[in-house]
């Protein structure tokens, strides 16, 4: 892949919203004028099974339709996947891993292959979600963390666009909008680099 865009791989479990976060990221990048791809890779369809989703965010139309093997950034929505999936596989030099966890980046790094040398970012997306939304929806804080780390969109623009997106998405339950907005802002503050 030419370095004229950003490629992101998401790891999650069916039902956790990794695909939704991936599609939301495509949405907000689209709103900022980019060419985007957001697509899931499905294995057997069942709740809890590992799923992968991908984003390409570029300044030119994107022809490639394969999966992403050499991502700039990887987001792990479920920490338990670190034991079974090689989430760091192919991460480019200068890239980063973003994990939903209550652990520190140092603790997470010990769980990764020794040859992984790029950055590790941790965000306790479950805690942020419980405190702001009142339920465990880790994908909203994870999305904010990925935007913060990847810088694919200007943060202010992102916050502005997400309000519009939530107002549209939650048109029938507007009471959840503020909690979700708060989740984005808190996640951007609480993410820990290592």
């Amino acid at each position, binding site marked *: 892949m030419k370095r004229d865009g950003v490629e992101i791989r998401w790891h999650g479990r069916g039902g956790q919203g990794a695909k939704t976060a991936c599609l939301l990221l*495509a949405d907000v990048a*689209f709103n900022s004028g980019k060419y985007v791809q957001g*697509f*899931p890779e499905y294995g057997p369809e069942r709740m809890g099974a590992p799923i992968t989703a991908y984003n390409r965010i570029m300044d030119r*139309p994107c*022809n*490639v*339709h*394969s999966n992403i093997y050499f991502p700039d950034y990887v987001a792990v929505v479920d920490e338990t996947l670190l034991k079974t999936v090689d989430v760091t596989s192919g991460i480019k030099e200068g890239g980063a891993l973003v994990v939903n966890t209550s652990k520190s980046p140092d603790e997470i790094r010990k769980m990764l292959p020794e040859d992984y040398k790029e950055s590790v970012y941790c965000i306790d997306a479950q805690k942020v979600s419980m405190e702001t939304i009142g339920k465990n929806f880790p994908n909203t804080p994870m999305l904010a963390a990925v935007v913060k780390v990847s810088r694919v969109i200007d943060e202010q623009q992102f916050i502005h666009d997400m309000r519009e997106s939530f107002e549209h998405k939650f048109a029938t339950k507007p009471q959840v909008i503020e909690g979700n907005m708060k989740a984005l802002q808190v996640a951007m503050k609480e993410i820990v680099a290592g």
Partner: protein
Amino acid sequence: MAIRDRLSGNEAIATAMRQINPDVMGAFPITPSTEIPQYFSGYIANGKVDTVFVPVESEHGAMSTCIGASAAGARAVTATSSAGLAFMWELLYVAASMRLPITMAVVNRALTGPININCDHSDSMGARDSGWLQIYAETNQEAYDNFIQGVLISEECRLPIMICQDGFITSHGVSNIELIEDEKVKEFVGEYEPENYLLNAENPLAVGPYGISPYYMEVKRKQAQAMKDSMPVIMDVAKKFYDMTGRKYGFFEEYKMDDAEVAIVVIGSSAGTGKEAVDRLRAEGQKVGLIKLRVFRPFPRIPLAEAMCKVKAVAVMDRAESFSNSGGPLFNECRSSLYDLDNKPYCINYIYGLGGRDIQVEDFYEIYKDLFVIYENDDPGDVYRYMGVRDSRFL
């Protein structure tokens, strides 16, 4: 002004259907095309269309609904995939022989054995002899554009049409798209006014009677003629579509073929990945090209053969096996089309991408490399090959 949006391929098809506002949709859900009737039934519930939606018990029922509706004089649509298409098999031939212009979105998925939900073309390739027109898309944009054109092509030819796109890869992949304004689509497809139809009390007729031997063959010959006559219709509709949108369509797209020495012929989303390989190899000075086949039925034998003759060696890529022990369906038709021509290129086959096996830019490098070897050694080697099989013992 076109409407800039980002949609999945399934959303794009559902949007096209909303804009077309067909009379009847018969549908039964199957992955990965389920979202199409799902979104569309939302448009019905919200009063965006006045289509009669018939939620049937099976795909056999869905196609039967479309056949009944179309014979009655209605514009009918449906969507399916894989085993769903297989379950329609009997009715596919009925629709085609009754010359009913049904527009069907096919979201390509592997046929079961072993069960698999991911993309290959075994479903629609299996239906290639059913008498349906078949158009394939590389992107969500093309799926949308093809569906809108498909309605007109089908009605003008009085042949049913499959508008195919790659399961999950484009059906569930969200990317940029330019939509056409509702009123422009409405004007483009117009009102469906069939010449003969069951609900026309002025001119009663029977449809689908027994075809005794003295007549059966003439019916088939007429279907074959209709397939032949669809060639100019496809181009006329493409011209009309170009005038509306500025987006150009033909039987196939030639990508950097003018001075190419070797080329790949491919259908569907993989063509995009192949184009990226072409761009990168061209940047290194390698003269490679690509032909993306859009229309598989009718098979554009003569123009495609001429395009392939621009190069010295061609690799034809099949995302379906035919277990003939002599290559996939696209390969056999491509290779056969070259037979009468002088200066024909070497023509080899790769079976790839079965059951969602991913194909990457680097895989295309390998194929182009193989083609240069063939060209330089003047020897095609084994023409029936596989790309992307994990275990070399199976090669």
